[in-house]
């Protein structure tokens, strides 16, 4: 309950935000699309953290999942295909006061935007990046994506995708200055909530890969994992995600993994026979670029004019 503290005292907040305050128009995603659940989870975290809507910015590229900002009533930037990361980093660079979320898909992030993805991980700016990984291009109607399964039939590979899928998490883990990688599934809202909450609380660039159902174009990709929980591996540790029993009890397949162990994180995320979910890696000691890029944001006009005059002196004749 809002404002109610553990000692039963009550803080009366000047502004209190309910879920409604983060909701915008009715999402136009298909019925059964995993994106709906991700959206409500993010909205709940905003509500729980009482994030100021005007200080929150959702940035996306192009694709089904990139419609995400339109369904939040915060500030949003629905930009170009593959280019969410440079924009998000630019927003954060001189406005570290803003809470930045990035919504991107497997095509947007891992294909057309792959170069920016690598560098966004390396910049390690304080933001949450959510990869909506449904193994397919859906908005453009069923083309193979870099994460499509080998043999997966699509309109560009009707006889089946010829190559094994790119693994976004191992890729992210391999990038220098990576600081947070987690995986979750959209059909377990409890686990997803704890994952995104931890990502938001992490200081640095939090990369969350969500195995996301597309009921229209890649239903087969996660169908089995939904009905057979043994195909999901719960990754747990004292330093990992603390997910309540209701979100974990169906999983018998469990693996203890210390999220400070980068080498082991690669091994965990590299498994192809199960979907590992949980915190793969976290390191809050890595340099954060927005701490570098935002130096000087409070300079006064006087500082600026003095600096300019000083420079003009250098060129004076």
């Amino acid at each position, binding site marked *: 309950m809002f404002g109610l503290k553990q000692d039963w005292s009550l803080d009366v907040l000047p502004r209190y935000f309910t879920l409604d305050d983060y909701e915008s128009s009715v999402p136009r995603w298909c019925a059964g699309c995993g994106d709906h659940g991700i959206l409500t989870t993010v909205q709940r975290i905003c509500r729980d953290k009482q994030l100021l809507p005007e200080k929150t910015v959702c940035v996306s590229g192009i694709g089904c999942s990139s419609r995400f900002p339109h369904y939040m009533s915060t500030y949003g930037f*629905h930009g170009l295909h593959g280019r969410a990361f*440079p924009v998000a980093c*630019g927003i954060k*660079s001189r406005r570290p006061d803003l809470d930045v979320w990035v919504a991107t898909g497997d095509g947007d992030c891992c294909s057309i935007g792959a170069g920016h993805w690598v560098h966004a991980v390396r910049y390690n700016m304080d933001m949450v990046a959510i990869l909506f990984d449904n193994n397919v291009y859906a908005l453009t109607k069923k083309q193979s994506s870099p994460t499509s399964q080998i043999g997966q039939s699509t309109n560009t590979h009707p006889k089946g995708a010829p190559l094994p899928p790119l693994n976004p998490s191992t890729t992210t883990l391999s990038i220098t200055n990576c600081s947070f990688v987690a995986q979750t599934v959209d059909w377990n809202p409890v686990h997803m909530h704890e994952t995104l909450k931890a990502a938001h609380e992490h200081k640095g660039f939090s990369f969350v890969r969500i195995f996301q159902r597309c009921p229209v174009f890649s239903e087969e990709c996660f169908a089995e994992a939904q009905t057979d929980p043994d195909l999901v591996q719960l990754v747990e540790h004292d330093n990992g995600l603390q997910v309540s029993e209701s979100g974990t009890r169906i999983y018998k397949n469990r693996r203890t993994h210390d999220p400070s162990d980068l080498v082991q994180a690669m091994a965990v995320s590299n498994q192809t026979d199960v979907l590992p979910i949980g915190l793969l890696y976290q390191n809050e000691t890595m340099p954060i670029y927005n701490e570098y890029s935002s*130096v000087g944001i409070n300079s006064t006009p006087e500082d*600026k004019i003095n*600096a300019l005059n000083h420079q*003009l002196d250098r060129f004076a*004749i």
Partner: protein
Amino acid sequence: MSKATTKNGTAQTKPQTIDEHIVEIVCDSGEGAQKAGTLFATISAKMGNGIWTVEIIPAEIKPPARSREGASGNRIRVGSKEMTNAGDEANLVVALNEQVLYGRLSQDAYGPETTILLESVWATDPDANIRDAYTAALADFSARGLNVIELPIHEACSELMTDPRLGKNIFVLGILCYIYQRDTALAKQEIANIFAKKGEKVISTNHALLDAGVEFAIKHIPFTYTIPNMDVTDDQVVMNGNVAVALGVMASGMDMVSMYPITPATSASHYLAGVFDQAGGFVHQAEDEIAAIGFALGASYAGKTACTITSGPGMALKTEFIGLAVMSEIPIVIVNVQRGGPSTGLPTKVEQGDLLNAMYAATGDAPKIIMAPATIEESFYSIITARQLAEAFRTPVIVLTDANLATGQTLYKRPVTKEDWLAPPIDQSDWHAGTPAYAWNEETGISPRPIPGQKGGEYVLTGLAHTPESHVAYNPQANQVGCDMRSRKIAALEQTFTPPKVHGDESGDLLIVGWGSTLGAIEEAVDRARAKGHKVSSVHLRYLSPMEVGLEEIFAKFKKVMTVEINYSDPMGSVAHPRPSQLAMMLRAHLMQEVDFWSIVPGQPLGPNQIVGVIEDKLGTTKPSKKKNEKAGAGK
């Protein structure tokens, strides 16, 4: 050997007073000619002369020694009045080998008026091939009518340096200081400044080299010159156009430049990277050209209007983001320091080939503001204006400079800094309830912009067609209205313009129309042609979108109107439908009238004499087909 060969111990002659001279120092890359040239220019400027300097840059970092393509150095035009361009053929050249002269001869940098002071060490080189090449070149230069004076510079420097190659540049500066009667005390002061970080020993060695150069020149050079001062009382600054752009960024109050390395734009960002923190600013080196503008747009969207500085290939890559900035009305300043194109083209060379790219390179209709500073001074002020226009009109502003402005150096009146130039602080007050994100004024297309942090202003910026509320809209009316409003802004800005000034009489036989860095050369050419009795004037355009106003009236008073540009066109009359130069194409479409054109793409700035030739051809006072300019115009 030359006509002016001298013997050691030539008696000092009385200095000849001249209005101006064009001096070049050329050598292999790495021999320090840039430094010597910069020092000579600075000393001359401090003594009260007007200057224009141009770097002579090979495209490679370390081209082979003694190669024609490797010519590296500096051209300094120094005179008793303001210098606005690099001029025509050089008067005096100091060359440290004969091969680099060929590089410059192929660029028409020298003529019969040129005296060349040539390092003679190659005549006795142990390598017979080098000796032969040197001898052959001397004969060739003589046949071309060049006036060559051989000088044993290497030998003289050997007395002071174990590796004389490293000291020749300052020795040459000493020679020039003698010839042009420069103040050696001032020269020593400038040497001390430029070598300040290298310590006392390096400074004293270079002072000795300077003195030795002066002594050497007294013995070997039979002529000296004095160039009277300009009458300038204002404080002056001297810098190149890229530094002027960088200082303009600081002066505009923008505090972020997001860039990716590209010639010839990068030096602007280099300079800023060293000093921007003093103004609280920050240079972001992005992972690529696309990210560079994306990052800048992110910052601009969040209220910190940013700048990205690039060149042709970078513009090509940024095109999609520029379209987004137009569509979603994000202010941003994009500086294109143009180089030769298409593709990788001529990275270090001059061209004005990106005007149509700036104008049209986007899908759909993407109107934006395009400015073209014509001088180094304007390069500074244009950025301040660009930031203000970008924010006032909520649109990208493209500033077109080029390699000529970027690397040329000249003097201009020191700007008197004003706080008004700076961007205001980010507005974080509550947004007016009920005002949509694009509350377009129907007459001007202008709308106030919500900034993240403004309560009640939350909107989702989108590159999709949208309503005033920034809601995605696919209906025919919404798209028409959005396009109308974005276009209206250009028309609204145009309303604020006054017609450009005509240089020369307001009527006549021929009007030359130019834009960008050709201003100095065109106006000097017009002055020379007018002195010869030709009824020619010129007008120079600083805004290309919206186009300058009043052109119909100005053009109507001339029998012929012709653009002069450094970009490609089929010469007029060469084919059935010659492809016009870029400004001509825009003016024809804009004014719906005939506009003639002359343009070439040599990768070089235009010289005033070259343009005089073009003017005379156009006026029919010379035989057009035999002229060098026309041949060049044919692109052969």
